[in-house]
């Protein structure tokens, strides 16, 4: 059993043992347990990930366990880098370089904003990628699941999330992307929202796209 714990965080001993026991039941070399189950007593759901090409379905003898299959091609993603950062694995996990683009980030924002407005009380799950990407593009750091949870818990309500987007996204994109690309990409994007006035989510995204291009124009 390999423990990935770069921040030396407390892992509940019994939970680590249970993680190891469940991983032993999975007939695959690359599998791991990550998330709050390892750190929080009150959290009983177990997130197990198996890196496999086989297409097989895996089962373990714990009803609280949820198994997700990851393809080897997924290992380049920010999501995989995040979940694999702090975890308990059966064996050394295969690592791949991170491949993430600004266009991926914009898609994440485009999915997150409507989701937040549709689930004003239960937005926590919907903003995971948004925060993960924003923090990565902002500081270069890939948050692990524990850091991500902590960051999301800082939001008091959905308005706080929208404020976070307004305050961070334009500056983050401005900092990380070539001006010529921003102008071309975001002017075009803002244009797409022109005909979608009946929905507040796209109104918000249109204003955001404008704010990003304005940021570039004002240097």
């Amino acid at each position: 059993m390999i423990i990935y714990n770069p921040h030396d965080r407390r892992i509940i001993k019994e939970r680590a043992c249970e993680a190891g026991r469940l991983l032993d039941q999975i007939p695959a070399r690359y599998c791991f347990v990550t998330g709050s189950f390892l750190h929080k007593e009150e959290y009983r759901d177990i997130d197990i990930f198996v890196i496999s090409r086989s297409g097989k379905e895996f089962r373990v003898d714990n009803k609280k366990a949820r198994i997700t299959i990851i393809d080897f091609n997924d290992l380049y993603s920010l999501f995989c880098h995040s979940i694999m950062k702090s975890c308990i694995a059966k064996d050394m996990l295969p690592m791949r370089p991170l491949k993430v683009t600004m266009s991926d980030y914009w898609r994440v924002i485009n999915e997150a904003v409507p989701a937040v407005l549709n689930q004003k009380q239960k937005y926590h799950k919907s903003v995971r990628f948004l925060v993960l990407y924003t923090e990565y593009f902002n500081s270069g750091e890939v948050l692990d699941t524990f850091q991500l949870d902590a960051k999301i818990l800082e939001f008091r309500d959905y308005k706080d999330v929208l404020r976070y987007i307004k305050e961070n996204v334009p500056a983050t994109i401005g900092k990380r992307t070539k001006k010529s690309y921003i102008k071309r990409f975001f002017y075009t994007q803002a244009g797409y929202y022109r005909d979608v006035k009946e929905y507040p989510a796209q109104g918000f995204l249109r204003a955001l796209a404008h704010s990003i291009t304005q940021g570039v124009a004002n240097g």
Partner: protein
Amino acid sequence: MVEPREFRKRIQEIVSQDYKVEFLGKNFDQIVSILTDTKAGKIYSWVNEVVSKKIQPIFIGSEKQYKNWAVSELFTFRHQFSIGNTEYRTLLVKVKNSIYIEFHLGNHKYYDKIRKELDLKKSSY
């Protein structure tokens, strides 16, 4: 237990248009048949809210082609629910200012596949 034919009929009635919505998904009927009446009821109310424009769509400014339309001509509405430990998604796809064309129901893997086809997702995030 919900009868798949009745489920499709109810959704088609709520959408209320002459054009027949296409019902798509891996194991569509199987998933519908394990829905409780309460869960099916929530899906019907969600479709109702979509039709009343109370649900915000996902909209991507992309010229990629999806069947007969450019992605930027489409709105995708998403609803998520769980049965046991498995998460499922329904997606209702609408042509901007026009008809509803597709209703998808599937697990996360299926959802990911459709997201890529609709250009909502590029890489594996």
